[in-house]
């Protein structure tokens, strides 16, 4: 998919994220908006995961460690044809529905049950190691929150990843600098984060994580170094794409009102028109 198409996809995904959260009455809004460009590029440009090959082992794998941003994942999986957008819109956050507030394997296309932070990286390391042991060519992609990095397990897993030279593992950190309480640097400082990851044995790259073109180019080059796990520090904006949500901690787990939804959708439509040059 070319850069223009990817940009249009991101806008469509953002609209769906907002619509399903509004309809479902709950959701991790800002974190889904911050990471959706990453998921867009992964599913539409980088990974070979489809409904048809999902039951095979030797295809790429994606584990979303920051499980709370499940609305972004549900949205992208609907677009990939794992289920319909309508099913998602009607099902999200409803009693007896499978579309609950964190990823579960009951939903087609979801690889691992997450939601408790600090699990996805260990599981991804295991899956990448199994790939090496079996001589498979697949790659494992995983997405972590920056606040999530306070969990010690992330660093235990990182040591394993480097120790086993897992260059089939790609760790992406959604570095939006916010968690629930506020700025990561005020809650529990992470910096110098790139240096820490380098010291733990990753090949580290940094990028604007809301720029689909840059993401597509860079992720197209993994592994960044042979013999090392890749780590992408994706500098993102939490709530990206909706002016009044951007970089606001209040939108971590907040649902837009009817009026707020209308404003947000209008902003996104305007962005689409501008992109299409129809203004």
């Amino acid at each position, binding site marked *: 998919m070319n850069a223009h198409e990817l940009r249009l996809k991101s806008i469509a995904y953002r609209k769906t994220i907002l619509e399903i959260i509004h309809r479902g009455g*709950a959701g991790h809004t800002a974190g889904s908006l911050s990471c959706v460009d990453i998921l867009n590029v992964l599913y539409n440009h980088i990974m070979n995961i489809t409904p048809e090959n999902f039951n095979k082992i030797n295809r790429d794998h994606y584990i979303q460690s920051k*499980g709370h941003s499940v609305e972004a994942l549900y949205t992208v999986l609907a677009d990939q044809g794992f289920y319909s957008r309508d099913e998602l819109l009607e099902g999200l*956050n*409803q*009693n*007896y*529905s*499978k579309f*609950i*507030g*964190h990823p*579960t394997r009951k939903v087609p296309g979801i690889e691992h*049950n*997450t*939601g*408790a*932070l*600090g699990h996805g990286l260990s599981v991804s390391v295991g899956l990448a190691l199994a790939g090496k042991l079996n001589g498979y060519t697949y790659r494992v992609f995983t997405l972590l929150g920056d*606040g*999530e990095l*306070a*969990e*010690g397990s992330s660093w235990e897993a990182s040591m394993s990843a480097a120790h086993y030279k897992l260059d089939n593992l790609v760790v992406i950190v959604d570095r939006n600098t916010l*968690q*629930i*309480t506020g700025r*990561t640097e005020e*809650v*529990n400082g992470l910096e110098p984060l790139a240096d820490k990851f380098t010291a733990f044995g990753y090949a580290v790259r940094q990028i604007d994580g809301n720029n689909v073109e840059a993401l597509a180019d860079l992720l197209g080059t993994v592994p960044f170094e042979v013999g090392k796990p890749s780590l992408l520090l994706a500098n993102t904006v939490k709530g990206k794409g909706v002016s009044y949500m951007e970089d606001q901690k209040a939108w971590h787990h907040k649902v837009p009102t009817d009026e707020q939804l209308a404003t947000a959708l209008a902003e996104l439509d305007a962005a689409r028109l501008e992109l299409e040059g129809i203004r």
Partner: protein
Amino acid sequence: MATEKTMGKPNQQVFSDTLLDLAQNDKDILVVTSDSRGSGKLVAFGETLPEQIVEVGIAEQNLVGLSSGLAAGGKKVFAVSPACFVTIRSLEQVKNDVAYSDRPVCVVGISAGVSYGLLGSTHHAIHDYAVLRCINNIDILAPADNFETEQVLRALVEHPRPAYIRLGKQAMPNLHDPATAIFEIGKAIQVRPGTDLTIISIGEPTPHAVDAADLLAKEGISCRVISMHTLRPFDRDALMDAALNTRAIITVEEHSVNGGLGELCASTLMQEGIQIPFKIVGFPDEYTINGDQETMFKHYGISGEGLAETARKLLGVRI
């Protein structure tokens, strides 16, 4: 007799209000949070007493270990985090650094049970009674209403010791008259007298037990309701009295049927040689349905009607 229930606040709100009140007069009281002050209703606490709140980020093991160290340094520590994480992720710290090392940390599990509803199993705590019951030297408390919550907290500040308090997210009806009710850790409170059967309840299901008693009363069945707010130390006498003076026992808890209040009562009775019609109500040993707390309660019979029906079956009554 049945007084109209008035609506109170969420127990975790009462917890934070009471703690703020106590901490303003006691500089040694510390709250430790893991990016959890919002869900713990502790934002006001942090703003009023910034010197008495310690933040560790999303790191529940660190939360409990560090709290043990603060307690060793003479602080009265309340480690507050969602019950689902602080009783499993940090279980070894709770076992070794709090209970075994005998440090007076109060571990506070918020949004407990299935409070988090549709956020799913990762966010449910229906294992905590079971795992903590196997760890010696930690009190286990699950207040049902605002009165019990406030009293538990005041008692623990007065006599700090290793303890776990489980608190839910929803507003709770008031079950007791604060003017007359007497609260003591380890001493169950009888919420309704009764002679035909007893429902022993812990935590947020307790108002539903009261509803069941009201329904049954209309059918001429006299149902005792006991609020067993403390699982350890356990009020054996309240259980034995129910077994000897009523004809059947139902236990109800927002927990797996494995290893909680029900099994504790069952094993106590059995070892006393008492046989009595007995039913444990809780979450069965299977993938639970997806639903909010109310839906899950209803689905698994934790409701006035559900418990009344269990009672009728147990007593062999047909209506």
